[in-house]
């Protein structure tokens, strides 16, 4: 592995704490030709809007974009499940030549008639941006004819990174919220939960906490989402933003337009979850009851999980973890949670972190920790082995790389199947980590039997 060199142009996106001055280059376009783990604008929009279960999600483009995103994210719904169907205008060669507007309109009318959705989102893919379909115009016509919000999501793949897709989704959401013409009434002690997508039922856990605190949840954007609920979002007193990368843009817009303040939180790990709930309680300090209930809740929840965490910590103490996630904010929480389990982080990276994010990461990490921006499989493999990681935390493309090297793996992306948020989520996380790190299989892999650098290494 040592023979693998790092791309010259990528040197500034890799930092090893204590070894060099910190000048992280990030928020750049990926180098053409790199085996990047990043996705596109469409991907960003699709993941943010997808959990709105009673909306129609129509993908305007050739079939691929619809096929690859058909129900791949386990965003759960307690009711309708229209979001799990795959609808595509399936553009063909003649549509590329003559334009796809007519086809789009026909498809929309047909689908709206059949499913009576509460709203429709039309995702523009690369090709739509090139052939110049006026999707907004079609949406306006169909909205007029059908009387439901019909919103174009400008998610042409080439127009930036996944982050730009988040922004396009936020614009679509804001446009939906703006369609609510009823007078604004701020509901006291109420919040919107932003940037929470109900993977593995996580939304329900968080909602349960707020209910116990006496805080009213007006809408969740977008986990277990409903169109009507999202349209009520402007009546909340506070926006609580998780996964800051994806919906901060919406929170800022709502602050500007409606004066709704927002705070950034994470519900991952004991420390961050408690902090999130306290922050909300403090915000509503005019209702002292909330803070009191919050204290009780946290005390009760923490007490319930500490014994099992302590048991697992005994096996995990001193084990080493590598983290590569989409947004850097998630990495902060993961580092803290891993510390709770007695583990050390030896590699931390993200696809889309900012300079400030990486500075925070640097401060959180120990000497020698490798910090990476927009990484690729070779680097991830190289540093995980060099740093002798016992655990890798990442998404679908990282999983088999970790396993190939004989390293335990925990999915902290959309393919996780169990809730990892909140206090009970912390126990689930610890169980997952414990299960994979202590699996007997790793004793059988060549890397453990013949450690790198020793005679007879395979």
């Amino acid at each position: 592995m040592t023979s693998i060199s790092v791309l010259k142009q990528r040197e500034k996106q890799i930092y090893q704490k204590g070894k060099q001055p910190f000048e992280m280059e990030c928020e750049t376009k990926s180098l053409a030709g790199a085996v990047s783990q990043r996705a596109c604008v469409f991907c960003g929009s699709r993941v943010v809007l997808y959990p709105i279960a009673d909306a129609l999600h129509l993908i305007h483009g050739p079939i691929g974009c619809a096929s690859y995103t058909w129900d791949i994210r386990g965003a759960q719904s307690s009711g309708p499940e229209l979001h799990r169907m795959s609808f595509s205008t399936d553009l063909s060669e003649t549509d590329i030549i003559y334009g796809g507007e007519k086809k789009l309109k026909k498809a929309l009318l047909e689908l709206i008639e059949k499913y009576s959705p509460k709203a429709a989102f039309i995702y523009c893919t690369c090709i739509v941006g090139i052939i110049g379909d006026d999707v907004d115009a079609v949406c306006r016509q169909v909205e007029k004819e059908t009387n439901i919000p019909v919103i174009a999501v400008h998610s042409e793949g080439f127009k930036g990174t996944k982050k730009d897709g988040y922004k396009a989704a936020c614009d679509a959401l804001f446009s939906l919220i703006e369609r609510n013409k009823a007078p604004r009434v701020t509901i006291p002690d109420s919040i919107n939960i932003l940037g929470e997508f109900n993977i593995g039922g996580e939304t329900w856990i968080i909602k349960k906490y707020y209910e116990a605190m006496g805080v009213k949840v007006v809408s969740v954007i977008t986990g277990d989402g409903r169109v009507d609920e999202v349209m009520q979002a402007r009546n909340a007193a506070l926006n609580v933003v998780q996964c800051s990368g994806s919906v901060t843009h919406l929170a800022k817009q709502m602050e500007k337009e409606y004066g709704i303040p927002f705070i950034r939180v994470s519900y991952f790990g004991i420390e961050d979850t408690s902090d999130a709930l306290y922050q909300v309680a403090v915000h509503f300090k005019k209702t002292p009851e909330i803070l009191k209930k919050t204290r009780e809740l946290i005390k009760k929840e923490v007490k319930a999980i500490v014994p099992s965490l302590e048991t697992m910590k005994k096996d995990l103490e001193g084990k080493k973890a590598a983290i590569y996630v989409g947004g850097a904010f998630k990495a902060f929480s993961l580092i803290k949670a891993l510390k709770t389990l007695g583990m050390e982080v030896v590699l931390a990276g993200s696809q889309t972190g900012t300079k400030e994010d990486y500075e925070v990461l640097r401060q959180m990490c120990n000497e020698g920790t490798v910090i990476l921006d927009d990484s690729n499989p070779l680097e991830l493999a190289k540093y995980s082995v060099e740093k002798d990681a016992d655990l890798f935390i990442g998404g679908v493309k990282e999983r088999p790389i970790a396993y190939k090297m004989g390293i335990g793996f925990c999915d902290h992306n959309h393919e996780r199947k169990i809730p990892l948020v909140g206090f009970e989520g912390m126990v689930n996380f610890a169980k997952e980590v414990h299960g994979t790190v202590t699996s007997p299989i790793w004793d059988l892999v060549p890397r453990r039997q013949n450690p790198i650098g020793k005679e007879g290494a395979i």
Partner: protein
Amino acid sequence: MLLRHTPKEIKERKALAVNPAKTCQPIGAMYAGLGIHGCLPHSHGSQGCCAYHRSTLTRHYREPIMAATSSFTEGASVFGGQANLLQALLTIFTTYNPDMVAVHTTCLSETIGDDVNQIVKKAYKDGTIPEGKYVVHAATPSYVGSHVTGFSNMVKSIAVQMAEKTGKSNGRVNIVPGFVEPSDMAEIKRIAAMLGVNPILFPDTSGVVNGPLTGKFEMYPKGGTPISDLKSAGDSMASIGLGAWASAEPVKALDAQCKIPCQVQDLPIGLLATDRFVDALRTVAGVSVPDCVTQERGQLLDVISDMQPHLYGKKVALAGDPDQLIPLTEFLVTIGMKPVHIVTGTPGKAFTKRIKEITARFGDQINVQNPGDMFLLHQWIKNEPVDLLICNTYGKYMARDEDIPFVRHGFPILDRIGHAYFPTVGYKGGLHLLEKILGVLMDRKDRDASEETFELVE
């Protein structure tokens, strides 16, 4: 409530695909590229295309899938992607050091009109492509055909751009295996070896996407067709293309370019199609069929007759790719089953004709749609229920909704293992298919049996 969005009543749809039974060309091209040893597939388009294809292939194979991308930006979409592709090739050869790069286009690069042939020529001329290294390229617009078309286009490009005719026969037979699993490719090689034929099989993803855990991350795993074999393909005695959709064009192109007599056979799925494949090999190579092959055929026939009462008259619904569905339908008819609903998303008029011929004994009772989607298949099933469903993972919604025994076959399979290791081609593959079909049918019989009729011996 799971996905109960399919009404029984069937209306003609023209403007859209719902729950597609296909995906787009580039992923097929990427898969084909992976089947060449030391080859890095390259996606000339937005970053998302490459990420989606890699994720889908990773989910299907549970293996790291390596591919690079031109990372199109807004600029590239206006001014053309030449600069991106040249930069990409430079990055790839200086960092990842493959022996070959297989470039495929996307809807984006096709529509803006990039001349990849000219760009690659320039890269050779400029020395961006080092001595002894190769770049092959194929046009794979996503709005034409399907993933099968993309596979075919890339294999054709590899054949015509790599094969060299020296005039001296190498005594070998070219076999293009079609868009099948690595297990199938390995089985085709095993059958050829039993017949004493030394084939040039291309592409060959066995050992690439089903490799062992070595404790190392291998950018270029051991498997794949050697480049020397690709060159030598111009000196073979004959070519056999398996599956008209995926493999006819490549073998015809080799015939046109190097005068290698070619024939197109069905994929050897089931007894009769395997007979035809074995016979074709026997004829072109001038060998006789050894006892070990006859033995395997006899075993398959034996098991079919043993289990015939459990199969007879059972109705089957199928979705998948034409090359698989034609011999699979034939196999089902052979073993006494009744395929009643058959859908493929891949266009091609010959499909319906072949299926009608194969199912002629059932008269007009068979539903065939090409191109069709899973939504239509589900509607057909609602109108005429079946005893068995065979299709890719996306069939699980229908199987659950209608409570139908379900065998996963095709691409993608996202929730089971085995397809990468156990073939469905050849006589052994036929046995494996039978085992799977009988397993689900008999499990269902046991599940539904009353206590009195619950039998130990079946």
